[in-house]
């Protein structure tokens, strides 16, 4: 039905399309140009060959991103459900609390997280004050995952909350009327309706987690994730071509991951509907 839009409607959308063209399409084209050329501008596919050398880094990034996303989902889903059940005035306050950390810069938050997790940091100081054994957190994979979860959790809560707050009470009442208990209502009504929120939440957490570079640098010690590698290629080595190639590969990998998830979710919806 898109072709039925009036000229006015098209014009309203124009700034956005212009924006998307200049800041999304053109940069992607530039990334592709650099990926397939060498430093003299000649066509080459050697840059993409690096994927072999950085395979472990790619896999590590995707694994940590997936773990962080899963933890975010486990924390955020009940949280979003609880918020959506609250009275409206309370909802506003709690939502502000959820978003509050986002008002502070990610770099700052990660830097302070470093101070919290360190061997001489706040957590271990409290533990030693209570005469409990110290735990080593900083410079481990756990610390990096904690950093990702902490930084990206709001991006999981908000979309799920948005979807859940749209589920109207009559729907739940109808489900009860038809004899479902609490659990059945959740499984067959609330959960299927919240799937779109879960999907966009996963996208919004997984993508930045996989491509993050600051968090792993500060919390991961000697660990390097793929974002760090790309950052290094651009900023340190001034090697735009291989940096772009790595970004390009990362983009494709994320795209595949998202496609896989979307396929499964579409399928899931269908089976539930049918």
């Amino acid at each position: 039905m898109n072709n039925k839009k009036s000229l006015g409607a098209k014009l309203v959308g124009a700034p956005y399309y212009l924006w998307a063209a200049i800041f999304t399409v053109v940069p992607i084209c530039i990334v592709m140009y650099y990926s397939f050329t060498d430093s003299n501008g000649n066509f080459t596919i050697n840059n993409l060959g690096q994927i072999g050398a950085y395979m472990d880094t790619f896999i590590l990034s995707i694994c940590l991103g997936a773990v962080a996303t899963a933890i975010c989902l486990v924390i955020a889903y009940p949280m979003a459900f609880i918020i959506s059940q609250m009275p409206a005035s309370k909802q506003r306050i709690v939502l502000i609390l959820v978003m509050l950390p986002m008002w502070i810069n990610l770099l700052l938050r990660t830097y302070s997280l470093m101070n919290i997790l360190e061997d001489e940091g706040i957590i271990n100081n409290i533990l030693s004050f209570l005469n409990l054994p110290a735990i080593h957190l900083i410079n481990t994979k756990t610390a990096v995952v904690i950093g990702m979860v902490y930084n990206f959790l709001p991006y999981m809560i908000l979309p799920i909350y948005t979807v859940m707050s749209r589920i109207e009470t009559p729907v739940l009442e109808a489900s009860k009327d038809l004899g479902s208990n609490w659990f059945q209502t959740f499984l067959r009504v609330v959960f299927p309706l919240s799937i779109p929120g879960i999907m966009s939440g996963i996208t919004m957490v997984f993508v930045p987690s996989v491509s993050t570079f600051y968090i792993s640098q500060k919390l991961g010690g000697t660990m390097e994730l793929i974002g760090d590698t790309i950052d290094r290629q651009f900023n340190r080595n001034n090697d735009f071509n291989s940096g772009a190639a790595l970004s390009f590969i990362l983009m494709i990998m994320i795209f595949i991951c998202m496609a896989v998830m979307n396929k499964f979710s579409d399928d899931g919806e269908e089976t539930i509907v049918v």
Partner: protein
Amino acid sequence: MKKFALVLKRMSALMLAVVVFCSISTFAFAKDDELELNVYNWGEYIDDGTDEGASSCEYSKDVIKAFEEYYKKTYGKTVKVNYSTFENNESLYTKLKMGGANYDVIVPSDYMINRFIKEGMLEELDFSNIPNYANIADTFKGDAWNYDPDHKYSVPYLWGTVGIVYNSEYVFGDVSTWNALWNEEYKNKILMFNNPRDTFAIALAKLSSDKNNQNITINTNDLTYWDEAYKLLEEQKPLVQAYVTDEVFNKMEKGEAWLAPCYYGDALVMMENNDKLKFTSINNSIANKYVDAFCIPKGAKNKKLAEEFINFMCTKEISFANACYTGYSSPNKLVTEDSTFPYYQDPNGYPADHRLENSYEEFLWLNPETQAKMDELWGQLKKAELGFLKWIVIIVIALVIIALVYVIITRIKKGNDSGLYEDDEDEEEEKTPVLSRKEQKLAEEQENYSPILAEEDKLE
């Protein structure tokens, strides 16, 4: 959520517009008689007057403001200094090379100056406009420093040496050799620089003293030495807590780490905040000495004014203030010969000239092949090693792909039964682009029905 994303996008568009507008308006409203000078320096690398009164330095002041006032007084013209900072030499290079920026004065380090000279990116300085260049110590104008071989392009600003900073509460042995950073006793308490040049310099210096081979320098272009240095670093990696930049301050001061290679100027700051910390220079092998110097990039709009600025920075008061504020060593002999200078005759900050010439070496710009080798080895050092975990993940991914293929196949099968109708409609539309009004209405109605109902409709 899409709405949220849209709002976010619109907000950033608005912000961008505001920023663009502001920058345009500053250009537009800048007065004709007002000069502009764009200075690009390292962060936290100039006296901004915040120490005034508090410190022991009698000259402390806001240096940039002082220059603006001085210029107004001497020439009667207003000059506006746009002072901005960079994080490392490489980002400075990228910025200059991409040509997006316009700077009059930059302060790169030795090896980057060397590179800029080799690539013809600097203006030759007119020293008749910089009479205070005479205040710079003669060592900086001789053979001890080779980054600017003819001393034509740069005026030294601040310099320093690398040594080891350590926590005397935990570290008792002798740490005045690079071997201390390879000591198993300090496992996970060692920090290293998060950049290849500094880290490889340490490994090359250690290699040189291990093999007692004077030919191995930190600027060597012999790739086999780089391979051997890499082996040393690989061996060291399990002992290293982290490769750090600015976090070194925090981690050393809190006792989170015990040992770190460090610039003396930085060590002074740490030692001020934790009196357990000590600094030692390296005794048995080479260490890095560096200098950051004023240069004028090619295409600078206001060369004369830039030289005026450099000249001003070489006056005794200003050099004194900057050396006090930053803690780095000053090349200005009027400062170092003044006995009221807080770091007067400090052996770590101002090693004797013969030591400076023999035990320290500055970085020079490496051959492109060596540079590429270094970047490659650094990537190899830093990349993740997963071992058996890798295979588990690959198997999982393979399973997911198989599952996906299965899902797609079952869908196609399903599609043959029910999804076919929609495809048909599409084709029909393509064949007959102009639909009658009735047909259009029908199509609209069908859109609202579920496919199954619609199909029934059609059958009727």
